[in-house]
């Protein structure tokens, strides 16, 4: 369990840096969805299941769709 926790946190940090470095906004949004999904699992490990539920629904679902909707109305590359 400790090893899985470390792997998830390292993946989270890599995702957070990659979102900030990516020039392609659509790719950045997809990386951000992966970040939210890992964050939901981490909330579950921290014994906050209601926050995990909200993060999985809002962060990985609705926010991604709203960002994609905005990108489709504007430019894709930064």
């Amino acid at each position, binding site marked *: 369990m400790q090893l899985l926790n470390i792997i998830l946190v390292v993946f989270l940090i890599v995702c957070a840096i990659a979102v900030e470095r990516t020039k392609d906004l659509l790719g950045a949004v997809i990386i951000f969805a992966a970040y939210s999904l890992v964050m939901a699992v981490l909330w579950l490990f921290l014994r906050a*299941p*209601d926050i995990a*539920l*909200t993060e999985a*629904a*809002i962060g990985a*679902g*609705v926010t991604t*769709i*709203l960002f994609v*909707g*905005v990108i*489709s*109305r504007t430019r894709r590359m930064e």
Partner: protein
Amino acid sequence: MDDLIVKIITRTIIPFIQVYGIFVIMHGHISPGGGFSGGAILGASLILYTLAYGYKDAAKKMPHKVSVMVESGAILWFMAIGLVGIIMGGNFLSNKAAGFYMGNLSMLFNAGLIPLVTLGIGIKVASTMVTLFHTIIEED
């Protein structure tokens, strides 16, 4: 988007998502979750319908006027429930101090006004999601 497989799968999976969302809203006071989480799941199911069937069909199912009315009505419902606490002789949203029926923990409807408040929050969040998404993607 006009894909038969996506439409069939969407039509099959939406009732399950909505039942789960209603479950999370109804059990908001005795299990993890609550109005915001359940409302987000309900709103995500409606957004999924819009993505699969396009804005035209979704606007027929849930027009902009109706979703705005539902949104405003839900927040008025929340405020009315809060004012009931004042009328019964307590603070805003006061529950046990105003003497509502508490029930026991094994039943679904206990804890006084909390299920009604959670129901209002769930409807509000779901209709807010749909209104936001429809406002972003609708054609000028």
